[in-house]
């Protein structure tokens, strides 16, 4: 299967890391730790799922962190200042995000602009707009918020699988189905292989591009809502740099940064590896939390080097298969 060997390596890294932590801290291997891992990284898992689609299609979306920040502020102000029911505020922000992503996708396609630049502009735009709305942290006290944060599936061993963790797992599962088992997903891989060829094969490249960035922005919006549940507040400076964390998760998850190969499951593992490092640091108690970034950086290097090496081996592996031909 495509993308499997790098994913296998990511899985191995995760399992090895987990075993290492368990060896050092005997109470590490508990449902509590695993459930917290999922909860703490729920928003990252959601946004990284969208990023996976974008990167496999050969693009990049730098705007997602700002979109998360914008979403938290929008939701907080709508609920607290304007008294909008939370669910309506959610619907409104998701629609807004869809429009925002669609616009970026359309610009990328119509003007044939590099996604890097277009989404960089989107990043400044969304961040600036959230500052415009409010520069302060706005706590959210709507009843729905306490209901959601109280909800959890109790696991044997004391773990609490929270609502936001469940949302994230659902998004990952849905993303995996969409990417691996639908025509839309196949077209995403096709775009990452070659845009012109995909167009020649009769795939509507323009509408695909629009839909991919729309998906990414909507998932960023959803991640923003989840983030507001997580922090019970809206703040214009939240999720700064999350676009880079999610790109890191996608690449560590075995997705080719140049597009055409990758998987959603790998991305989830990439997210969990980052979370694992953070958890280790929390357990240790003496390490600076910036070690997360350092280890993530090292892992990124390792995975990119690995991808290059595998590409190199593939290129050098001599004559290609001629296929079995009988005549």
């Amino acid at each position: 299967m495509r993308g499997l060997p790098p994913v296998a390596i990511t899985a191995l890294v995760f399992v090895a890391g987990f075993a290492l932590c368990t060896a050092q801290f005997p109470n590490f291997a508990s449902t509590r730790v695993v459930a917290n891992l999922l909860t703490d990284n729920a928003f990252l898992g959601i946004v990284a799922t969208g990023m996976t689609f974008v990167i496999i299609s050969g693009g990049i979306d730098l705007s997602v962190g700002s979109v998360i920040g914008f979403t938290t502020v929008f939701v907080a102000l709508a609920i607290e200042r304007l008294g909008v029911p939370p669910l309506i505020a959610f619907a409104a922000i998701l629609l807004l995000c869809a429009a925002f992503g669609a616009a970026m996708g359309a610009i990328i396609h119509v003007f044939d602009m590099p996604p890097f630049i277009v989404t960089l502009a989107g990043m400044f735009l969304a961040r600036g707009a959230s500052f415009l709305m409010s520069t302060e942290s706005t706590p959210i006290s709507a009843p729905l918020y306490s209901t959601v944060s109280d909800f959890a599936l109790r696991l044997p061993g004391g773990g609490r699988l929270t609502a936001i963790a469940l949302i994230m797992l659902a998004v990952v599962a849905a993303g995996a189905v969409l990417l691996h088992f639908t025509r839309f997903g196949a077209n995403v891989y096709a775009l990452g292989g070659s845009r012109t060829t995909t167009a020649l094969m009769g795939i509507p490249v323009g509408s695909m591009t629009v839909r991919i960035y729309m998906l990414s922005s909507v998932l960023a919006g959803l991640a923003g809502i989840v983030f507001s549940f997580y922090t019970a507040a809206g703040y214009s400076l939240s999720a700064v740099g999350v676009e880079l964390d999610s790109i890191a998760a996608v690449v560590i998850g075995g997705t080719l940064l140049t597009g055409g190969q990758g998987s959603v499951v790998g991305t989830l593992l990439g997210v969990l590896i980052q979370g694992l490092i953070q958890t280790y640091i929390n357990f240790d108690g003496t390490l600076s939390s910036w070690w997360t970034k350092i280890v993530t950086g090292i892992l990124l290097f390792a995975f990119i080097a690995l991808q290059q090496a595998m590409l190199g081996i593939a290129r050098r592996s001599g004559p290609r298969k001629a296929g079995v031909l009988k005549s």
Partner: protein
Amino acid sequence: MPAFAFDANVGGSDVGMNAHSDPGHALLEVRALSKSFGTLRALQQVDFTLRAGEIHALLGENGAGKSTLIKAVTGVFPRDAGIVRLDGAEVAPRTAKAALDAGIATVYQEVNLLLNLSVAQNLYLGRQPTRFGLVREAEMRRHAAALLAEFDLHIDVAEPLGNYSVAVQHITAIARAVDQSARVLILDEPTASLDRHEVEVLFAVMRKLAQRGIGVIFVTHFLDQVYEISDRITVLRNGRLIGERTTAELPRIELIRMMLGRELAETTRERAAAQDRKAGDVCARFDGYGKAGYVAPFNLSLRRGEVVGLAGLLGSGRTETARLVFGAERADSGSVTVEGKPVRLLSPRDAVAHGFGYCPEERKTEGIIADLTVRENIVLALQAKRGLAKPLSRAEQDEIAMGFIRLLDIRPPEPERSIGLLSGGNQQKVLLARWLATAPRLLVLDEPTRGIDVGAHAEIIRLIRELCDDGLALLVISSELDEIVTYSDRVVVLRDRAHVDELEGEAVDVTNILAAIAVAGTAGAEAG
């Protein structure tokens, strides 16, 4: 230019093709198609008829209008005038997609498929079988395997297409097109990057398609392949229809005449004056020259006024030998003597200093500098040899450039034109001129006629002969044995990175070369 009997296309009438009794009905009819780009009239009132179940070769020199015709028919370019009928109904596709929907599929030389997707996904992208929105992977693979099995291709369709050879990729592209109910299949130079066996496989597929009643248009510049596979030939020249013939009734010399529009003495296959020439003194001599893991040590002496051909399969060490001779690779054994004096070739600079020149195979990437003018490209090597301290004056440059443009008949004769705008054959002549300007004693030509149309091909061969008549020593690499036989006085045969045989005089012929290549365990090379 003398007019030929079949040169007529006056008033856009068809070329007497209604009266014959072919079983295949007219599938694709192009009538009076015209297309201009600015002032260039790329196609003028061209007619073309493809019958169901035939393989129809579309031939012509570079710039004859083959590509333009295909692109005008398949909607890549809009056409200025003329009509296209498919099964009697007029069609006017505006995009390649629309042409495909109408039943006209094109497979280009660079396979337009996605190497990162599985073979099955490539076959069914955009039309995968689904249930509740989900792709039915197992069913798709089953269909894909069955579809390819029709072409005698039995591969694991779940593997990425990029894992397979170019031939498999071509067949996959054809299978996709045919499965999308294409009735007209256009193959644009499909065999250019295939080896002999792969060409056979592709031809088997083409024959099978023709049997099914699909019309196949085969664009190529390999005339041997035209005679091997095609039923009918249409020749274009300078944007006009020259004629349509059945392949069986068209002798090769006649075909070449149609393509060139001028009398061409038997271009190839004839070792005319080669024996008459008297080889001069040895000007460069390589003894036990070689490099471990690159080319086994060889002995090679090159005489003035002599053409030595290097023959062998791709990867046999031909280009590697050339690079050693030119100092582009350093030898780790053996010695070189030039005019009797021992020398060392550590870099191309040394080689140039001893009067060597080298026209590499990759003209576009290693040879020409596309943004510079013809004049600048010609004086490049000479200036480098003189050193930057002694610049050539503009007047000297102009004189040199014009001199070679006239001598080699470079067209158009404009020294200030960017070389990138010239045809392949003329670019090759500019490269030759670049080295000739340095007055070399030895010139190495790697595939001098690759990617060049028939006319320029013959001219390059003629030039090679003339050059060595003037006392130059030439070392020429070519994959085309006929061509090597035509101009070589001696042929060195390579196999598995070693020089295995040397043929001289009467012994130089295609059969002997093939025999030498096929000797001792190397599989299946046969003559013809």
